[in-house]
């Protein structure tokens, strides 16, 4: 039992390795060279400063959506709604970016906060439904994703533009983009958002590990009866957890709206940032540090994959398979635990 902590670290690492090995086997079987494939992946992520900038750009929203899922999970809630929370956050950020004219010191924070608030509202609705009526948050958050997607598309077409597919670019006073960072990385789309994302991870760690709020949230996640017995307000904590989670995901939307793209376009489908956040949280064992590390891995894989068809003629879809396999191995961590225990026994 003492080695539980070690297990918690070993399981994701071994899962990643197994995922990569399985990916190599799949490449071999399909007639590609796995060494060339992974070299291309590596170069695609770290090959030069441009790629590194793009990788950081991709990591940024992953950290935030990972936090959004992990934070809710610590209070026993499945936030499948990070996707919708990203979309409304994105919309709110761009909207404020376009609608207001103010100096940067006011404009940018306002746009960022608008995104967080929009995401928080999108989390609040499933939260209050769960707390007051016992409606399962998984169902509500999934439905909220669709509501977010289609309402946002409609607002872009008929409110923000005159039946156009994309809004104008936000003014520099609301932008997270930085010429300095872009210059540094051969004009990648890297932006200051990574600082916000890392700060958010610290915030989550601090709330969960160091405050009475986190103490209550976790207690409610573990055992609602005991929490009630101890005088905690269970409904308040459920709602609060979803609100904070939603705010994290909303910030991820701001990263895209204010940083990467500077605008919002009509979407034919989900961004998948929120859904990938579920995987990031799972791989990161729902801790702040774990989420950051998992987000880095996912960002590297996703950006590196773009280079695989040109670098080694391996289709990018292969990376999706590898990611899926990693998730599979994490989810079946029981098997890894069992194997580790076996080895330990025989080692004696």
């Amino acid at each position, binding site marked *: *039992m003492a080695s539980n902590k070690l297990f918690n670290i070993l399981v994701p690492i071994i899962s990643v390795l197994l995922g990569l090995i399985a990916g190599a086997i799949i490449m071999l079987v399909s007639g590609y060279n796995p060494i060339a494939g992974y070299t291309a992946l590596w170069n695609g992520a770290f090959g030069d400063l441009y790629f590194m900038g793009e990788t950081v750009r991709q990591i940024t929203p992953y950290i935030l959506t990972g936090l959004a899922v992990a934070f809710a999970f610590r209070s026993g809630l499945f936030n499948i709604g990070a996707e919708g929370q990203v979309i409304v956050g994105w919309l709110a950020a761009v909207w404020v970016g376009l609608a207001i004219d103010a100096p940067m010191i006011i404009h940018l924070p306002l746009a960022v906060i608008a995104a967080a608030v929009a995401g928080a509202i999108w989390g609040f609705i499933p939260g209050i439904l769960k707390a007051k009526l016992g409606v399962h948050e998984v169902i509500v958050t999934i439905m909220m994703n669709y509501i977010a997607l289609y309402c946002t598309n409609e607002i872009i077409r008929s409110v923000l533009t005159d039946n156009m597919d994309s809004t104008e670019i936000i003014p520099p006073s609301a932008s997270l983009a930085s010429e300095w960072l872009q210059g540094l990385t051969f004009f990648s789309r890297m932006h200051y958002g990574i600082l916000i994302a890392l700060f958010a991870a610290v915030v989550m760690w601090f709330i969960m590990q*160091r*405050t*009475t*709020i986190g*103490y209550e949230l*976790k*207690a409610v996640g*573990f*055992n609602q*009866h*005991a*929490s*009630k*017995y*101890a*005088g*905690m307000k269970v409904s308040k904590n459920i709602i609060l957890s979803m609100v904070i989670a939603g705010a994290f995901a909303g910030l991820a939307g701001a990263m895209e709206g204010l940083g990467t793209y500077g605008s919002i376009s009509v979407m034919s489908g989900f961004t998948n940032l929120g859904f990938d956040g579920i995987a990031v949280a799972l791989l990161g064992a729902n801790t702040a540090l774990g989420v950051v590390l998992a987000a880095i891995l996912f960002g590297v894989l996703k950006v590196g994959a773009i280079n695989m068809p040109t670098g080694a003629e391996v289709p990018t879809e292969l990376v999706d398979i590898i990611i899926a396999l990693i998730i599979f191995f994490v989810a079946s961590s029981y098997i890894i635990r069992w194997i580790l225990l076996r080895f330990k026994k025989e080692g004696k």
Partner: protein
Amino acid sequence: MVDYVIEMLNIRKEFPGIVANDNITVQVKKGEIHALLGENGAGKSTLMNVLFGLYQPEKGEIKVKGKKVNITNPNIANDLGIGMVHQHFMLVEPFTVTQNIILGNEPKKKSGKIDIKKAEKEIQELSDRYGLKVDPTAKISDISVGMQQRVEILKTLYRGADVLIFDEPTAVLTPQEIKDLIEIMRSLIKEGKSIILITHKLKEIMEVCDRCTVIRKGKGIKTVDVENTNATELASLMVGREISFKTEKTEANPKETVLKIDDLYVKDARKVDLVKGLNLELRAGEIVGIAGIDGNGQTELIEAITGLRKTESGTIKLNNKDITNMKPRKVTESGIGHIPQDRHKYGLVLDYPIGENMVLQTYYQKPFSKGTVLNYKEIYKKANKLIKEYDVRTPSEYTKARALSGGNQQKAIIGREVDRSPDLLIAAQPTRGLDVGAIEFIHKKLIEERDKGKAVLLISFELDEIIDVSDTISVMFDGKIVANVKPEETNEQELGLLMAGSNKTEAGDWNGIE
């Protein structure tokens, strides 16, 4: 040559890291009631699971009627005539008695249809033969717990058991039902059956058993003839040291009223009135014990006092201040400590370290936090103090509460509740499932609180505990306090009848007849 029906010789069973059974030998004579006595975790259940084929022993052999056997699964145990009456009944509630008994072993007509009539007849015969008085056509959900247990007994008999294992059979029964069960056991013996009784209740052993094998920490300590021993000797064999039964306490010295409940009505989750016009008064420096059969409103009463459940009407006053329908936190802050009935569900956050569980109601107060920031140094300082004072045995204060034994979890809860020094301490079944050593400790703590001038409300289904610890016994029946008696002026017989709804004079008459 003694005629042994079951012999378990030098059984050894290991689990990773522990030896659950270390060279235990148990020999059961034909036609005897053989007790298996030991503390929680001593290895009784493991041993019986070995006999029942659920575990394979590492060493040792099992003989049934003198023949060496290899019991690899429960079906083999059944075929050898070994039957188990589990502590938690394995019954399908919406089915009838007969349907439950034949389940998995149905007599069939030629057409393949179940021959329920034949089964009913057989079961009726069995029931009559052993004086079980079970109606084979009754639905399980309609019959009492005691009856359900008899159905379990019938189930083993129907399958041809010669040796019946009873696992803590009296834990769920009222005193009256226990008496009946003892009669049933005697009639089973008369008909040539043998019984193994797993228990940690010494009184039952003294009353009904012929011989007793004591197990301590996985080792067989001794097998004794019950005639030649007494409860004190058995207890010290079981725990390995002298145990005092009579809880030492001086005369109570009650002072001002702490808790006053007037005409309280509380509904349960199904919206049925379970507390119906209850009145109760509790003074500083006394322990009031609430005796009653489970389900007569005790749980709802506690939940109403502690703010976990809304009341319908009536008032609850603490130190003359109305606390009716206050939020749990306000109730706690007004000076109530609560040792909950279900320590896993309510008492602890099992996945929190035991240290963090020690501040479950006080984490938001100084010095454990400042503003919203927790001060772990202070939290663990307090935790360590309580762990030491209340002898909570844990590898460290960072160990998850889940990993502790029941007794140590309970000591932690008691430490936490008592340490806040509440004017009223509610202890609901504080010793359920614990062994003699832990029980002794907890009773001592409750009496200490009383002597410090606190009021203690004890709710228990164990009459021994109620009589032993309380200064006044309030009998609860059907949502009301139906009688207040002094422990020294009553006995289990009278209490049992009061708990079953007889009024005081009737109960007195019954007493006279005895």
